[in-house]
Every structure is written in C-alpha cells, then in structure tokens.
C-alpha cells in the first residue's frame, strides 16, 4: 500500500503511523521533518513551501514505488505540506512498515533523501531581515 498526500493542512503524524501498522509488520520507521529555528546561524521566522503539485505527487509516487520494488516493505505513507509553516511545524512525514527493521530503515532513509533531490517542492526561508529560496543560488 502506498499513500501519497500533498496538503496545505497540518499532517496528522499518528494517522500516518496507524496507516502503515499491520500484523505482518515487525517494524515501522518514521521520519518527521520539523521546521528548525536557526539556519546557518540566522533565526528563522517561518518557511513558505510551494509545490508544482501534479508533478510533485507523481515524483513522490515514483519514489515510493521504487522503494517498494527495491526492499520487502508492507506499506509506505508519504505526506508533504505546502504553504506557510511556523518553527516546530512538520513539513514532511514518511512512515514505512516491513517484516524486518533493516528494510524499514533503509527505505525510509532512501525516500527522504530522494525526495529532497527530485520532488518539485521549494522552500523559502523567512528571516527577521530577509528571505531566501533554499539552495537556489550558489
């Protein structure tokens, strides 16, 4: 089972975890991204997330499908936020269940690493004294 959501509403972490739990699973790995208060020494006020929605959903699906093929997994939930997030809020939740923990850990790590490389979502960091699109310029 693969469950992909891109939403401007808060992500329900417990619901994500419940969705991947199943009697045939022995382990669940969950990654929760959180908005950090400081980047490179500068105080962050909030983040604005923008997505190219149809392509972002399609790329998230591709990543989950590749993970399902690569490792013996049961279920994958991948939810990502758009819009404005305050410090401490959750831009992304990835939950992966598998019979054995090795597959769950490896796949969860693969999904977040690949998402950060290929999924068309952009974040703008808003500081007290300016703002910047992350990674956009050298």
């Amino acid at each position, binding site marked *: 089972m693969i469950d992909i959501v891109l939403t401007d509403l808060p992500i329900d972490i417990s619901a994500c975890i419940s969705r991947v739990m199943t009697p045939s699973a022995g382990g669940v790995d969950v990654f929760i991204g959180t908005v950090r208060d400081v980047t490179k020494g500068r105080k962050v006020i909030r983040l604005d997330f*923008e997505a190219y929605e149809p*392509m972002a959903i399609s790329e998230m699906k591709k990543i989950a499908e590749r993970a399902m093929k690569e490792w013996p997994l049961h279920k994958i939930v991948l939810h990502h936020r758009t819009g404005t997030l305050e410090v401490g809020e959750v831009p992304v939740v990835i939950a992966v269940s598998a019979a054995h923990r090795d597959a769950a850990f490896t796949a969860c790590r693969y999904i977040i690493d690949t998402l950060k490389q*290929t999924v068309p979502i952009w974040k703008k960091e808003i500081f007290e004294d300016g703002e910047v699109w992350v990674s*956009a310029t050298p």
Partner: protein
Amino acid sequence: MKIKILAFGIAKDIFGAPGIEVELQHGQTVGDMRLLLEAKFSRLASLSSYMVAVNNEYADRQQLLQEVDEVAIIPPVSGG
C-alpha cells in the same frame, strides 16, 4: 509556435510571474528554450542549476517541444 512555461520558486521571482509564454520554432528543443530564456532572464543562468519538466516529467536538452506541452522551470528543489 507559442509555448507556455510555468515557473516555481525563485524562477517565478526571476520571471516576475507564475508563467510566461515564449515563441519557438517547430523542431526546437528544451536546450533551445533554455538558451532563449537565459538570454532574456540573465539571473536564470546564475542559479545553482535548474531543470525543465515537460508534461510533469524531467526532460533532457534534446527533447523536442510541442505547442500542447506543459513546460515548467524547476529550480533546485528544497522540499522535506
């Protein structure tokens, strides 16, 4: 032919709009379109990098463009 180009993130700031239109000849490619855009918007060439998506898929420079295509400029992504 007219090609509509969607822009996201910093590309939207560079174009000053969420989308623009460019005039291309039949037989022109993603690579041709990149050169044309970079000539018009010099800040585009100063990005760390950027990709082009055609119909929701990453496209290489050789890909031919058609009037019906949904084209998008994908500056370095930063989700998660």
